[in-house]
Structure formats: structure tokens, C-alpha cells
């Protein structure tokens, strides 16, 4: 009898994978509170029973022996790795007391939240910060997706990415976006398009599989994206390949743009982009004369100093050719749960607090009027505030699902600041190099451990839209529990209660009911419906989509001009490039790019999942055979990668797929190595990347297109 009670029946929980930001359908086979098997859900309208490796391996993450399961309090010196287990009540008490004391002494702005690339808690964190009174809630929007949102805000007045519509396109431009590896579940829509006969133009310094299928592959010099985009616009306008009707009726500033791009000829762009002028023309013509066509701009463009202006230029190419918000073009999804950034309670943050946002002079972030304040510059301005108390002291950091010791540029600066900050709280699944430095560590729940609404403030590139052009939100259903883990929303609920802050709830379900209000459903009902979708409306500009001052798609932005920025995208060379730093080039002769997506990992996660790590066991630097030979480097050798910030080593992967003047290294840490650093000082490429100077408008650092040198690691050294 007793055994029967322990041995529960195997049950199947239908939910949605969130191992990336995907939302593919899964069936979790659960027995005795353990996931024993993962299957794709054949009833899911988009993933149709398939899954990518990150979803298939989720049981190894959820039930990993190293999972954080209980709140921990540091007992030794910072980073010494000595902890004691505490209760949630103690943890909430201690955090609440500390944060309230810091707020009383230094002001709420001395408390800074770090969000990481979302596990669906971005808006809740911004909401918490608003109620607490601090403008400083960071997610990595300043160099990932944010530039697309800002570009769109300036062009059309709506801060949503203008996403490529693969389903109906006849010409796809994959620009610094290797979607088949960043979102494998979307791969099929790209391959379907190509098999349907869609043209494919790939802008990528690396020969990816997509590039190998391209009609035109533009092997760009990393950092030359703005020059390439501007010279393509030059060609489209100069050869009168633009959509005159759309431009006349719906666009503002065309004459200014025409004049502006006159100087950006393909011949001018050739030495900057390393792409022959004729090839640029060919690509521009193919894009402009094939209808419909779309551009898939990626993060590669955003990890550069001219990030949002370059994204603006890419979206302009789409508008110029009449491909905006039409099937097969660049589109703005229609979300079922109201608009964007609506649930952050932005209005509760007093304007004088909002004005204190740590933005380091970048005027398009930090509680800028289009969005919530969860878009601050987590970089030099924050580290400086911690180190020097200027412009004011920052005393507490509250990080959830955030591992800046691996993910942010210039690790040394991050490390110094985390060492110095008075109070650091980190919530995550595992003891990361960031969590190692915390005062309080909180165990976060993974997606199978929580109820949630898969709902996004910005419609990103999720697979679940693509089957019938309809934005989806979906119900995550709790399948298992591990230790005492809590979702970030539960943590914020608990803290808000202790701190007597408004805006939060007793249970997550109350928050879900608030979110669901526009649909007329409550959480219990939604759990049964599982997916809610909202049909696409095409050409929304005919129904008042353009919220710009001119009411049109703006090529020329008076708004930017008034802020002191260029009203139109210009060419800006990065700080450490072969063109801008010719003296440095003598000693650092190679161009470094970092962080291309690895299909078995999501950002810095999952390096400790056995089935995934087996596929990609070591950090690899891609080097052209000629360059490798010049340095006496053979396949599998450890290679030093050195910039002005320092050096790290990764293993050589010798490949024809990269220009001899370029090398590519990946993001890495060793979860299995001992703390506090888990090997990051050896292999973490962000030790050598550059956080300053950054994009003057939104603060994007340079993580792609830096100067470096390489050498073989000699044995015994």
C-alpha cells in the first residue's frame, strides 16, 4: 500500500518549452515528481511534435544534481564559496531589510535590477523597480533586440521589431542572423521558403549552412553593416528600384534620404565591407526587384557601436521597396494581450526618479518615453557608479536569470563592480560565476516547475506565430517541483509583500488573471484553452499604425535631430577596427567576432547538460587554414586570443568558412570546474570584448568586430 502511494502513475503533462524563448509544444512524462521522458507535442500547431535538443534534454537540466534548490546565505568571504541554507522567509526578510535600508540612506536609485535575457520575467522586474522607486532595471536590450525596438520606434512610432515573414516571402535577406541555429524550430519555415523558390541573400562573415544555400552570400567584414546597408539604399534609390507609390504616400523624408545616400556608393563601400561593388549592386537589385521580400536582421548588427541606426537602415530598405507590413515582407505582429510594455506600471515611478536612470549619456534608453525603464545601460555607467559613487552610489544589485560574468563585455570591469557592491542578490538555476559572488542566492524555477503565461512584451522571433500568421500566448503548466525553487514572479510577490510595495499579488495566478483580462478568460480557463492567438492584420498603416510625428514611416527623424543625433543613419566605423585603428592593427592584425549561436545551448546556459555538452564539449575558435598555418596552429590546438583587455584561450577549429583576416570565438564557462570562477578567466571571450565607447544613443558595446591577435598556447605555459 505504502509503495503504491509513492509510486504515482506516470502522467503526461502538456505544456510549452521555454529552453529558449521558443514556445514549442511538449509532453512531459512525469512519475514520482520526476520528468522521465520528453516528447514533442504533435497537437502543437507549429512545432508539430518536433523539438530541438534544448527541449529534449530538459529533464537533465531540471533534475541536475547541481541545481540550486534552497535559498543560500553567504557565510565566508565574497566568492569563497561558503554558504548556509536559509528559509525563504529568512531570505525575503534579509533582502527586504537590506534594500529598504539602502533606499532610506541612498535613495531607491542605489538599487539596480539585472534581468538577463528573459525567462519571461522582464516586465515583472520593471514593475517591481517602478514600485520600489528605482529607474534602474537592466535587461540586455541595449545590445540585443532593443536596437530593433528603438529603430522601429523612430521609424514608425511603435517599439516592436519588424519581423521577417518567412511564410510568404520570395526573397529573404538573413543579415547577421543564423536563425537555423538561434531558433532551430523556425528553420523549417526558412527551408520551406527556399524550396518554394524564394531567393536567399545571406550577410554573414561565416559560411553557415544558410550561406551555402544563398543566391548571393555577402561575406561582410564584421563592422561593415552600416556601410553595406547604406550602399544598398544608394543603389535602390539611384536605380529607381524603390516603390514610388508607397514612398510617396506613406514615407517621410525621402528627398533628404536620397540626397544623404548619394555619397554612399557601392564603390565607396567596397573597401569598408570587403564586398565587391558589383556584388553589392547585384544583391540590392535582387532584393528590390523580387516581391515580396523581407530582411531578417540579427543581433550581430546590434553588438556594434552604430547599432540602432544600422537597424533603422535595414528596416528602411524594407519600407523603400514597399515590403512593410505585407505578407512576405517585414511585419509587426498583433499581440493578443494588448500592446507593448503595458504591465510595468510605468506611471508609478516619479519623473524625478526616472530622470536618474543610469544611461551614461545615451538618450534613447533609461525610461525613455516609448518603453519601461528596463532598458538602462548595464555597462560602464553602472560599474562606474558602483566603483566611484558617481553620479550617485549604487549599493545593491538584484539579478535574476542573469550571468553578466559570462554574458556581458569586459568581464574584468563586471568582476570589480560585483566584488565591490555592498549587497548582491542572484537568482538562477545553478551556481554561476555571477551567483558565486552573491550575498544571497535564490533558486529559480525552470519552466517545467511553474505555471506561467508565455507572453512577451515585444513580439520576437517565436516559432509559434509562423503557421498561420497569428501571434500566440500560451499556458505553461507546472509539472514537477524541485527543492524549494520559485519563479521570479513568486520571488517578487514575496519581496513586495515584505517591503510593503504595491503592484504585486499573493499568487502568480492573480497576476495571470490581470494579464488575461482583455481576453475575458481567467487562468483556470486559459489553462484549458492553452493557446490564444490573434490573427494578423496586414498593412496596419492604413489603420493608423504609424505613430511618428509625421504620421508616416520616417526616413528622416526630427525627433532624433532634436536630441542631437543624426536624423538619418550614417556610416560610423567601430572603435577597434582595421580602418579606425590602423596603428593598433600592426600588433592586433585580426578581426574578432564572438558569440555566434550554438544550437545546443541558449546563451550561457546548458554547458552542464550532459547530452548537450557531448555535442559541443569545448569552446572553439574558428580560424582560416592560412591564418592557422601562419601561426603554426593545428586543429584542436589551444589558441590564445588577445586584445587590449587581456587574453583567453579556446580550441582551434580550422575552417574555410571564415575570412583569413577574421576569427570567431564562442561564449563559454565550465560549470563543472570549481568556483568562484568556473574557468572563466581561461576561456570566457567576454574578457577581451569591449564595453566602451558604446553606441551614443542606446549604449551598444562592441562584441563583434574587434582587433585581436592569436598565438598557439605552448605546453607548460
Amino acid at each position, binding site marked *: 500500500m505504502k509503495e503504491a502511494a509513492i509510486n504515482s502513475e506516470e502522467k503526461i503533462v502538456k505544456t510549452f518549452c521555454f529552453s529558449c524563448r521558443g514556445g514549442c509544444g511538449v509532453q512531459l512524462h512525469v512519475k514520482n515528481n520526476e520528468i522521465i521522458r520528453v516528447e514533442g507535442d504533435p497537437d502543437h500547431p507549429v512545432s508539430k*511534435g518536433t523539438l530541438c535538443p534544448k527541449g529534449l534534454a530538459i529533464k537533465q537540466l531540471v533534475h541536475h544534481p547541481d541545481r540550486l534548490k534552497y535559498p543560500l546565505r553567504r557565510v565566508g568571504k565574497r566568492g569563497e564559496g561558503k554558504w548556509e541554507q536559509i528559509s525563504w522567509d529568512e531570505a525575503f526578510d534579509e533582502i527586504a531589510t537590506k534594500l529598504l535600508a539602502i533606499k532610506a540612506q541612498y535613495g531607491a536609485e542605489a538599487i539596480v535590477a539585472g534581468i538577463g535575457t528573459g525567462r519571461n520575467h522582464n516586465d515583472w522586474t520593471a514593475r517591481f523597480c517602478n514600485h520600489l522607486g528605482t529607474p534602474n532595471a537592466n535587461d540586455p536590450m541595449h545590445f540585443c533586440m532593443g536596437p530593433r525596438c528603438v529603430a522601429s520606434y523612430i521609424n514608425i512610432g511603435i517599439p516592436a521589431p519588424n519581423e521577417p515573414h518567412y511564410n510568404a516571402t520570395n526573397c529573404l535577406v538573413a543579415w547577421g542572423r543564423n536563425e537555423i541555429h538561434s531558433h532551430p524550430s523556425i528553420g523549417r519555415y526558412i527551408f520551406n521558403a527556399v*524550396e518554394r523558390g524564394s531567393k536567399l541573400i545571406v550577410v554573414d562573415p561565416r559560411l553557415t549552412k544558410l550561406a551555402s*544555400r544563398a543566391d548571393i552570400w555577402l561575406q561582410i567584414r564584421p563592422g561593415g553593416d552600416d556601410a553595406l546597408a547604406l550602399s544598398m539604399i544608394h543603389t535602390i534609390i539611384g536605380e529607381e528600384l524603390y516603390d514610388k507609390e508607397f514612398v510617396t504616400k506613406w514615407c517621410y523624408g525621402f528627398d533628404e534620404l536620397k540626397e544623404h545616400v548619394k555619397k554612399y556608393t557601392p564603390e565607396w563601400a567596397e573597401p569598408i565591407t570587403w564586398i565587391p561593388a558589383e556584388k553589392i549592386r547585384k544583391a540590392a537589385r535582387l532584393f528590390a526587384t523580387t516581391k515580396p521580400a523581407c530582411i531578417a536582421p540579427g543581433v550581430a548588427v546590434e553588438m556594434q557601436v552604430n547599432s540602432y541606426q544600422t537597424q533603422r537602415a535595414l528596416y528602411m530598405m524594407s519600407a523603400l521597396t514597399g515590403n512593410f507590413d505585407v505578407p512576405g515582407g517585414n511585419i509587426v505582429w498583433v499581440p493578443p494581450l494588448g500592446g507593448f510594455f503595458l504591465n510595468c506600471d510605468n506611471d508609478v515611478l516619479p519623473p524625478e526618479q526616472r530622470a536618474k536612470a543610469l544611461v551614461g549619456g545615451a538618450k534613447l534608453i533609461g525610461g525613455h518615453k516609448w518603453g519601461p525603464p528596463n532598458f538602462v545601460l548595464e555597462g560602464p555607467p553602472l560599474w562606474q557608479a558602483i566603483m566611484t559613487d558617481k553620479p550617485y552610489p549604487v549599493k545593491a544589485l538584484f539579478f535574476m536569470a542573469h550571468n553578466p560574468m559570462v554574458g556581458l563585455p569586459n568581464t574584468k570591469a563586471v568582476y570589480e563592480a560585483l566584488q565591490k557592491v555592498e549587497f548582491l542578490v542572484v537568482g538562477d538555476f545553478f551556481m554561476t560565476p555571477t551567483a558565486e559572488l552573491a550575498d544571497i542566492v535564490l533558486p529559480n524555477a525552470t519552466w517545467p516547475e511553474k505555471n506561467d503565461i508565455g507572453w512577451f512584451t515585444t513580439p520576437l522571433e517565436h516559432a509559434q506565430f509562423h503557421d498561420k500568421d497569428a501571434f500566440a500566448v500560451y499556458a505553461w503548466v507546472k509539472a514537477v517541483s524541485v527543492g524549494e525553487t520559485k519563479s521570479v514572479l513568486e520571488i517578487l510577490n514575496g519581496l513586495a509583500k515584505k517591503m510593503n510595495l504595491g503592484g504585486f499579488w499573493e499568487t502568480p495566478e492573480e497576476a495571470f488573471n490581470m494579464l488575461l483580462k482583455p481576453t475575458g478568460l481567467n487562468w483556470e480557463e486559459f489553462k484549458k484553452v492553452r493557446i490564444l492567438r490573434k490573427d494578423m492584420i496586414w498593412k496596419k498603416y492604413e489603420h493608423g499604425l504609424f505613430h511618428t510625428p509625421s504620421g508616416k514611416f520616417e526616413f528622416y527623424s526630427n525627433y532624433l535631430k532634436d536630441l542631437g543625433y543624426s536624423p538619418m543613419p550614417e556610416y560610423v566605423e567601430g572603435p577597434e577596427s582595421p580602418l579606425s585603428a590602423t596603428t593598433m592593427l600592426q600588433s592586433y592584425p585580426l578581426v574578432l567576432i564572438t558569440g555566434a549561436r550554438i544550437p545546443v545551448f541558449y546563451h550561457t546556459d546548458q554547458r552542464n547538460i550532459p*547530452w548537450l555538452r557531448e555535442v559541443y564539449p569545448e569552446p572553439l575558435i574558428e580560424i582560416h587554414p592560412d591564418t592557422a598555418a601562419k601561426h603554426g596552429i593545428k586543429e584542436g590546438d589551444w589558441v590564445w586570443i588577445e586584445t587590449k583587455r587581456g587574453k583567453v584561450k579556446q580550441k582551434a577549429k580550422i575552417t574555410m568558412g571564415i575570412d583569413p583576416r577574421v576569427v570567431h570565438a564562442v561564449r563559454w564557462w565550465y560549470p563543472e570546474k570549481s568556483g568562484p570562477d568556473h574557468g572563466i578567466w581561461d576561456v570566457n571571450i567576454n574578457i577581451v570584448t569591449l564595453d566602451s565607447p558604446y553606441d551614443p544613443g542606446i549604449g551598444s558595446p562592441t562584441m563583434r568586430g574587434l582587433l585581436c591577435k592569436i598565438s598557439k598556447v605552448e605546453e607548460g605555459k
Partner: protein
Amino acid sequence: MLIDFDRCQGCNACEVACKQENELPVGPRLKQVLTIGPEKVGRKLIMEYLPVMCMHCENPPCAAECPVGAITKSNRGITLVNEKKCHDTNKDVCKKACISACPFPVPPQYNPEKDIVQMCNMCVQRLAKGEKPSCVKHCINEVITFGTKEELAKIIQERGNQTISIGGVIPNVACRPSVLHLPAKKPYTVS
């Protein structure tokens, strides 16, 4: 099984699906996605991912070399390992002859946890329940088709009656594999 690697995006879902289905530890990899290239072959630029596993030969050399006859062909043409026989055999004596006998990129894989050699068994346990093999089901891009030889022959015919040996990875040998690879439709042509 027919592998249309034209659509393979190298995401490794099939490999992890296989690991789960066979509850494999780190080490044995019954299904692997090889990267071919990037390299120039004539005027073509080749950059492909190629899922490979046991080829289920009609005359499997691994079976011929196994001293205890632990590897057999099922009536559906699937090459199967008799796990008990394999486990009960002293590996110092048999020297895992099946592994070296295999001419293909993914030979039989030794699983130290179970002290047996394993290879793709086409998920016979799933087939018995009327399900597709796990790698076939989970492949996002419908790269892998499972079916009878006749069904597959039809697809091959539709695609120009060509199966291939790319870069010498799949040698053309007399053991008549039942896992076939279709050529890429449109590799990049260098101008």
C-alpha cells in the same frame, strides 16, 4: 530510412532524441550529425550537416565479425543487437570486432554502463506501438523519412534517382546499406 540532408540544419535534435530513447550515458552516440565542409568542391561550396547512424546493411559486416552471433537482422530489415548475448561475452575475447568491421562513420557504439555494444535499432520499441522512431518524429526539418524500401525508392526516384556518397564519408561498399542519403538540391556555386 532515407536522409534528405538538404534540409538538415545541424541542430542535433535527432542525436539528443536518440540519447533519450536509449537512455544513453555520455560516450555512445548512436546517431551523430557530421559537419561536411565548409570546403570547395569544384565550383561548389559545400557546407552540409549529415545525420548518420547505423546503416542497417543487408549484409552487415559487424554481424559477420561477431564471434557469438549477437547481431542479427530482423524480418523488417533492422539490424539488432542481442543485448544479453553481447553483455555475456567477454570483450577482451571478442575485441568488439563489430566496431572495427563497420566501414561507416558511426560504427556500433560501446556502452560501458551496460557493457554492451549498441547501435540504432530504428526504435523498434516505438515501432511496436505504432510510433515513428524518435529521431524521425523530433526532426524539425523532416530530414529523416522512415518507411519500407519501396516507399523510399519512390521518393528517391522523384528526386532524380540519385543517392550519394559525399566527400567519401559514405563509402560505396557491397554491404548494401538500408539508410540512404539524398544529395543536396542547391549547393552554393562560387562565382
